[in-house]
């Protein structure tokens, strides 16, 4: 756990990202705000289409500019700079060096025609003034840091020669080779087996302790969140619907969606065996046809008239926030 009293290294304020589609402008991320502190792991959870990946790509400004735009009030404050209005040149200095990203699919995010060493070298070439030998030594050192077996040999191999877990380790090594302040990991273990996932999570935890890196972990796996995150932000249909410390989210969720999500995971043990799982009825609303009022209303077990009339605002108290007219109280 890191100190929360210090100044956050990343402040996201009212971030709204819109896409131009055939059906009109769609707001995929709607008014998202959060702080990130050094050495902290923030989990962003939610189902597909809730806006978690778009949030991370908006911070990195990796979305296609001819299809998407950010609303003018959006602010991503990092190092005294608003990344939403930074020039492409300034962004290039931030990306990879200060803020790095790990993508979900290591196979498609590595370039198949270049050796591992070349791909690690790319960021070092741009962001450091090391010479060729120095960069290669650094690349090998990074591979060793991510516990890649035989790094001296692997550095001269192509991505297809590596297993899925090793490719993901290369991705992490690439992201870390300039010692970024912030690491954004978008579903870093989703495509991997559990034993490999355990290795990668272990590795990320170790790096956080060694380098004091702040991590934004985007995932839909609540088990992973429970094991590695300090704070959790739950998103639904583009909105942050709950944000709190990991213990609070798991043990006393305020938003009915958070509660329902937690209940729908299969539980371990003979008592629960073979029972029907509590489910959330229906599906996530389409962003083009959002209901008036609360976005979760059609699936909510506690829906009342007020939920249809107006959308609840994000209420913050005691270090946690929720977006619900009738928040769940007390311990479960």
């Amino acid at each position, binding site marked *: 756990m890191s100190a929360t009293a210090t100044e956050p290294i990343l402040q996201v304020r009212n971030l709204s990202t819109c896409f131009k589609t055939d059906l009109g402008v769609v707001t995929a991320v709607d008014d998202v705000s959060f702080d990130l502190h050094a050495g902290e792991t923030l989990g962003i959870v939610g*189902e*597909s289409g809730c806006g978690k990946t778009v949030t991370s790509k908006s911070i990195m400004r990796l979305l296609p500019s001819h299809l998407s735009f950010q609303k003018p009030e959006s602010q991503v404050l990092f190092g005294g700079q608003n990344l939403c209005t930074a020039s492409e040149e300034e962004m290039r200095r931030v990306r990879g060096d200060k803020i790095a990203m790990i993508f979900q699919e290591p196979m498609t995010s590595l370039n198949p025609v270049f050796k591992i060493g070349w791909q690690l070298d790319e960021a070092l070439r741009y962001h450091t003034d090391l010479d060729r030998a120095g960069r290669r030594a650094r690349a090998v050192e990074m591979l060793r840091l991510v516990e890649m*077996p035989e790094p001296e040999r692997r550095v001269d191999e192509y991505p297809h020669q590596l*297993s*899925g*877990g090793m490719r993901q380790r290369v991705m992490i090594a690439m992201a870390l080779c300039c010692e970024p302040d912030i690491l954004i990991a978008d579903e870093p273990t989703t495509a991997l*087996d*559990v*034993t*490999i*996932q*355990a*290795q990668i*999570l*272990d590795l990320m935890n170790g790096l956080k302790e060694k380098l004091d890196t702040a991590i934004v972990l985007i995932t*839909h*796996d*609540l*088990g*992973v*969140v*429970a*094991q*590695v*995150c300090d704070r959790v932000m739950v998103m639904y249909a583009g909105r942050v619907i709950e944000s709190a410390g*990991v*213990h609070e989210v*798991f*043990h006393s969720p305020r938003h009915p969606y958070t509660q*329902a*999500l*937690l209940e*729908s*995971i*299969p*539980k*371990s*043990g*003979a*008592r*629960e*065996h*073979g*029972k*029907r*799982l*509590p*489910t*959330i*009825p229906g*599906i996530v609303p389409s962003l083009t046809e959002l209901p008036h009022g609360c976005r979760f209303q059609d699936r909510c077990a506690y829906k009342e008239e007020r939920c249809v009339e107006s959308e609840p605002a994000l209420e913050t108290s005691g270090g946690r926030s929720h977006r619900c007219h009738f928040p769940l109280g007390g311990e479960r």
Partner: protein
Amino acid sequence: MSQAPVTDRAATDSALLEVRDLVMHFPVRGGVLNRVVAKVHALNGVSLDVRRGETLGIVGESGCGKSTLGKCLIRLLSPTSGSIRYGEEELVGLGHRDLMPHRKRMQMIFQDPYSSLNPRLTVREALREVAAFHQISPPFGLDAYVEELIQKVGLRVDAADKFPHEFSGGQRQRIGIARALACQPEFLVADEPVSALDVSIQAQVLNLLMDLKEEFGLTLVFVSHDLKVVEHFCDRVLVMYLGSVVEELDCRRLHEDARHPYTRALLGANPINDPADRRPLTVLEGDVPSPFDLPPGCAFAGRCPEVQERCRRERPSLEEKAGGGPVACWEVGPPSDPQGPRVAK
């Protein structure tokens, strides 16, 4: 955790499927003459019984042969050798034509419902095709039958005339299930049916499978990499590693009974959904050996924390051992410590 007796609900029932020494090798061809240059050893002598009415889980990591086993069971693949007895019939060695009458009795649900549905057929056409091919003649006509099926899997009747691309992932999986049920099978193999779905949708589909199993008296083989889902959903589970079954367990006593080091590593690597219960995840060293060239001893020996000299020389077979289910390990003797890796607080 309550101490449920280790009795199988279906133990007294007869076996629907008896599989013995199933071997599946995929030839790899190469060179100028396109000769067989290597073999992928996907299944190396798997024996199992599927009991009537049970849900049998098969877990393991990618490449362990669990999907291959699933496909062999319903003869989508022709095993290299071994035997699959389905009731009185031997399935291995049957040709395409001879298999036809059995196809009606066993069906498969695939992981990705989108790539397994024909994009040019509406749901109605797809389901009608199955029913018509297998000569199902429902009393009120095929259309009524198809509509009833669609409602059974929790979709609205107006879904019948839509195309697969008009549905969400969870809805498509429901269509995949309806398609599998359209020929009224008694045996289903579900290959990772919920892996591609979101948590809340996953629960819906699992509940649906549970209901349908009850209603139609199905026997289910559930192939998955997700031990949490299998533990909740299945009666028994087979843990596979590199083409062999290493342990068989009762899902109600998974954590207590797990004795094979690989099963325990799998359990230990699964993150628990409770931030108050944080512990270092079990991290295995080393990588899975190549399926082209199997090691002489135990396949897990290279990564096993309890490896002994004997493990590298001789391959253990799946044997019944006191205090748990059958397990393939030289080192397992007495029942495991009940305060095993995952139960301990």
